[in-house]
């Protein structure tokens, strides 16, 4: 073991790693234009929902019966009415932005909470095994078997409908999903030879589960979480549509769809715009989830490999072909 002890470590190598790890994702994102577009769309929606609402809260709630069902795509009544107005003459564009904030906040908090809880319980369950595992999974089964909409209906009927309660209900109904995925993935990864190898070198069990197994469970959970953003937005929209999600003055996209339902034949825009907003957000989240899964797995990052440079000058290749034939 005398070799290499005194060898100076090149600085380039020491610096190489953190930078590449940090920028790797962004670099890869640039190479898949469709995903990049979706990421930008999602970022714009999120930024708008985050920044704009405080400035337009009053204007969005402004009822103006003279402007009820103003048609979209006209600037006659100002930019706020670009997407028309609803039954009470409220500007659709501003309502959509207010709704974006609520919808995204509900979706993100529900997904993050349910994800973290399910992830932790799922891995714990797989790690402990035995009757604890069985009990936890049966609970998950029970929550999963009851139709989530029905369960949410029941809970929200008892509790007061509010943003907080809506989030709690969504967390409750969506957690089993992550529990199962995290547990299944942990059990699968745990069988890997590298886990045995880690034990053979003397790693602690807690270290193996947190340091060796967890990184392989995380991408799966992230993928599921991104998918779930779409599902949760839709579920929240559904609950609001049914009238037990939110109450005015809170507004989200599902509620807007519900409000417009009665006027579908005369004023389509009241229903369609919030519907389109849900679809675009859900789609973007789905595409991003697919991409996240691929880049979190080092063995799959070749999918985002740099394209080969243009072919070398023709003579060599034709010469090769000639010699082959």
């Amino acid at each position, binding site marked *: 073991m005398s070799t290499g002890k005194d060898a100076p470590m090149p600085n380039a190598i020491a610096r190489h790693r953190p930078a590449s790890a940090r920028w790797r994702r962004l670099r890869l994102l640039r190479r898949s234009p469709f995903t990049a577009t979706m990421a930008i769309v999602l970022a714009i929606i999120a930024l708008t929902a985050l920044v704009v609402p405080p400035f337009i809260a009053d204007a969005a709630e402004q009822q103006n019966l003279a402007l009820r069902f103003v048609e979209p795509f006209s600037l006659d009544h100002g930019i706020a009415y670009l997407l028309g107005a609803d039954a009470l003459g409220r500007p659709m564009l501003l309502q959509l932005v207010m709704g974006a904030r609520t919808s995204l906040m509900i979706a993100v908090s529900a997904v993050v909470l349910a994800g973290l809880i399910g992830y932790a319980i799922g891995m714990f369950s797989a790690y402990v095994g035995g009757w604890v595992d069985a009990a936890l999974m049966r609970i998950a089964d029970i929550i999963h078997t009851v139709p989530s909409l029905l369960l949410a209906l029941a809970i929200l009927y008892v509790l007061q409908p509010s943003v907080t309660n809506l989030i709690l209900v969504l967390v409750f109904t969506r957690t089993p999903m992550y529990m199962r995925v995290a547990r299944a993935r942990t059990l699968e990864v745990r069988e890997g030879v590298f886990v045995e190898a880690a*034990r053979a*070198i003397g790693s602690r069990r807690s270290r193996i589960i947190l340091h060796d197994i967890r990184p392989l469970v995380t991408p799966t959970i992230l993928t599921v979480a991104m998918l779930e953003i779409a599902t949760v937005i839709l579920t929240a929209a559904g609950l609001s549509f049914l009238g037990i999600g939110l109450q005015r003055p809170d507004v989200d996209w599902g509620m807007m769809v519900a409000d417009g339902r009665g006027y579908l034949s005369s004023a389509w825009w009241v229903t369609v715009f919030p519907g389109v907003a849900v679809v675009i957000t859900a789609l973007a989240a789905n595409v991003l989830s697919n991409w996240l899964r691929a880049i979190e797995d080092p063995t799959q990052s070749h999918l985002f490999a740099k394209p080969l440079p243009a072919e070398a000058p023709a003579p060599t290749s034709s010469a090769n072909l000639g010699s082959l034939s």
Partner: protein
Amino acid sequence: MNPTASLDQQPLLDIANLTVTFPSEHGPVRAVRGVNLRLRGGESLAILGESGSGKSVTGKAALGLIGSRVRLTGSIRFEGDEIVGADENRLRALRGRGIAMVFQDSLDSLNPVYTVGSQLEEILRVRMGRSRSDARREAIALLEQVGITSPETRLHHYPHQFSGGMRQRVCIAMAIALRPRVLIADEPTTALDVTVQAGILRLLKRLQRETGMALIFVTHDLNVARLVADRVAVMYAGRVVETGPIDEVYRRPAHPYSRALMHSHPSAATSWSELHPIPGNGPSKSVVVAGCSFHPRCPVATERCASEDPPMLAVEPGRSSACHYAEEVLRGER
């Protein structure tokens, strides 16, 4: 085993009357049945056997890597300390430092999400308390030691960016990182191309010479075993059926199974007619054969073999065999 062989020196690893019993739907299955093995410091022992002979299980048992639902009896002593029944903390202290292991599948035995360097450095930091920069330096030295070129760059690569042979070298580097006294290599070249096998074998041999560690080489390939091992223990159906210096066992086997194993190896034959596969199927673990477990496939079996299980007896100094007719087989009379 010859009683005078190792009395002068306490064996480094002493496996005595080891049995390993797995639970199964058909009841208990005994994968290892009364194995005795001794390994002295710096020695190199090959455990040779077909799949299902219990050779890998024996290796894993020495590290306490057998699940909790599996029953272990007998004794495994490492430097005099009992491993069978030891608690997880003591086993953990032993693993890597006392005994380390290299597995067959080199791709699966490295964590795919960490770079090779960070996995190596982690071992050194956690187990040896090295600082970040010391661990880095030592990891580079280790990779260099196992013959990986430009280790400073390779450190930053993920396991899937290595070829099979290189990956196995990385696995070996990880196994020797804590300077173990015993290295158990469980079919380390089986999954590799023939062209790189020799390199790995030579590396193991060289490392053993450099570090003075003992080597247990688990394999089904006799020719591979001959390249690395001084002694061989031939296993069949969970038992050791013959032990001895590997060249002598190879030249003059004292057990019909060892002999059959040598005659069934493709490289021993120059034409099809010289190749003699062992008739019948390998032993079934759930069906217990009365008498000698090899007798249904044995060309020289007699009625005695079907009723009486032969004990392990010395046939020559340093050699023993579990066959009623060991001496005749040795002399080539049967």
